[in-house]
């Protein structure tokens, strides 16, 4: 027998159809009324679609795919800013791979790179540090996107720069906060969301605190779940139990990776380097108050937004009208409802950001489309 501590056997257990079946049985017993559950995170959407979970569950349970895809929610004008920076001489723009294909007003970063801009794909902010050391005469600008999970990694990069006296790194900060976006969805007229599967790794950092006020103000149950099929089913089981008991609040089903208080060290990194913007525009969701981070004034030396304020133009084009990304990100439409899906819009040649990312609903449906109900 494989040793129990081994990663592979652990993953097999989390994907084991037999165990899943037993949990599915318990879920069926708890299902009564129709219930619409939003899984906030794109990682959850991927598991649900990839393993065809919706088809295995009672028809009363439906999933609304949420806005938890950082690439998808980064609006066009921020991509335009990155493209404008990349066109500067003596500058290296570093970005995570998925951002490369996101369409901007005048093309994507991929197109900018093809036209000769120095754009490097990095896997981690750690690579940015290495790039800066290898290119001491150039400024390396990191196009930083992502939620609370990623913000501390950007902060840790800057901390290393300070410690090692590296002065040729700047960051274009686009970090966003999940809870204000969830609140924006709950405030929409006719919101259909009954309960939430809360994002696992965001909560690894933040703990349950950002979601507690939402649960109590809007009287909704939240369960923090992991990313394997077992985790989603366990989260669902907890949620249905809460619904049956008319409970609200935030529970953690992903106990192996999430503590109620989160990761205090990572939170202290966020606190030290960032403060909250008055407002930030999300793709599809529009302006949301207090929903994003920016560098604190004392760290302006790292702030690409300040250093290059002159190169950004303010005439970004709106997203193409036929693209339903906005409605997809709010859980109001499934990708297959978009007329362009799989035809004019594919991962190779995306019209909207939701098709680009491996965490975007359109990209996920495209990749696993055989498993999506018509």
């Amino acid at each position: 027998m494989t040793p129990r501590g081994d990663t592979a056997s652990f993953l097999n257990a989390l994907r084991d159809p037999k165990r899943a079946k037993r949990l599915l049985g318990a879920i069926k017993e708890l299902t009564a009324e129709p219930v619409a559950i939003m899984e906030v995170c794109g990682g959850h959407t991927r598991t649900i679609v990839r393993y065809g979970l919706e088809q295995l569950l009672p028809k009363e349970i439906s999933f609304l795919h949420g806005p938890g895809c950082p690439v998808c929610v980064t609006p066009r004008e921020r991509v335009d800013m990155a493209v404008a920076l990349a066109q500067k001489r003596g500058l290296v723009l570093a970005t995570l791979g998925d951002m490369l294909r996101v369409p901007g007003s005048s093309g994507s970063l991929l197109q900018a790179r093809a036209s000769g801009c120095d754009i490097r794909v990095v896997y981690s902010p750690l690579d940015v540090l290495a790039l800066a050391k290898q290119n001491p005469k150039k400024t390396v600008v990191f196009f930083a996107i992502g939620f609370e999970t990623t913000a501390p990694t950007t902060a840790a990069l800057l901390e290393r720069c300070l410690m090692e006296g590296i002065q040729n790194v700047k960051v274009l900060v686009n970090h966003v906060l999940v809870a204000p976006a969830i609140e924006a969805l709950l405030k929409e007229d006719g919101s259909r969301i009954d309960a939430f599967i809360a994002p696992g790794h965001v909560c690894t950092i933040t703990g349950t605190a950002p979601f507690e006020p939402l649960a109590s103000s809007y009287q909704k149950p939240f369960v923090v779940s992991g990313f394997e099929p077992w985790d989603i089913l366990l989260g669902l089981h907890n949620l249905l139990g809460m619904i049956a008991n008319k409970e609200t609040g935030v529970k953690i089903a992903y106990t192996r990776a999430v503590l109620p208080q989160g990761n205090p060290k990572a939170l202290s990194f966020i606190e030290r380097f960032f403060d909250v913007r008055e407002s930030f525009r999300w793709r599809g969701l529009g302006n949301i108050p207090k929903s994003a981070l920016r560098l604190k004034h004392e760290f302006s030396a790292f702030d690409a937004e300040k250093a290059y304020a002159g190169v950004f133009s303010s005439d970004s084009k709106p997203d193409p009208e036929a693209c339903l990304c906005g409605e997809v990100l709010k859980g109001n439409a499934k990708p297959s409802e978009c007329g362009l899906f799989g035809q004019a819009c594919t991962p190779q040649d995306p019209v909207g950001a939701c098709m680009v990312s491996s965490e975007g609903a359109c990209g996920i449906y495209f990749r696993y489309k055989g498993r999506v109900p018509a």
Partner: protein
Amino acid sequence: MCLAIPSKIVELRGPGLAVADTLGTTRLVSLDLLEEPPSVGDYVIIHVGYAIQRLDPKDALETMDLFLDLLGTDDDA
């Protein structure tokens, strides 16, 4: 962006760096965001090259099977 698969620390490389093994693929990861530095053999969750939490797969597996026992549905043969 999220790498949900537990990765095993196989080598510590100061300062604040380690080599982690994710299902046979190894890479350099930062330990800057961990409250306490892990030891070789510990499992962590990695997000864009940073270990963000330690976890214990063995413990998690036991919790899972305990939960199934409590559910009291059919035993897996």
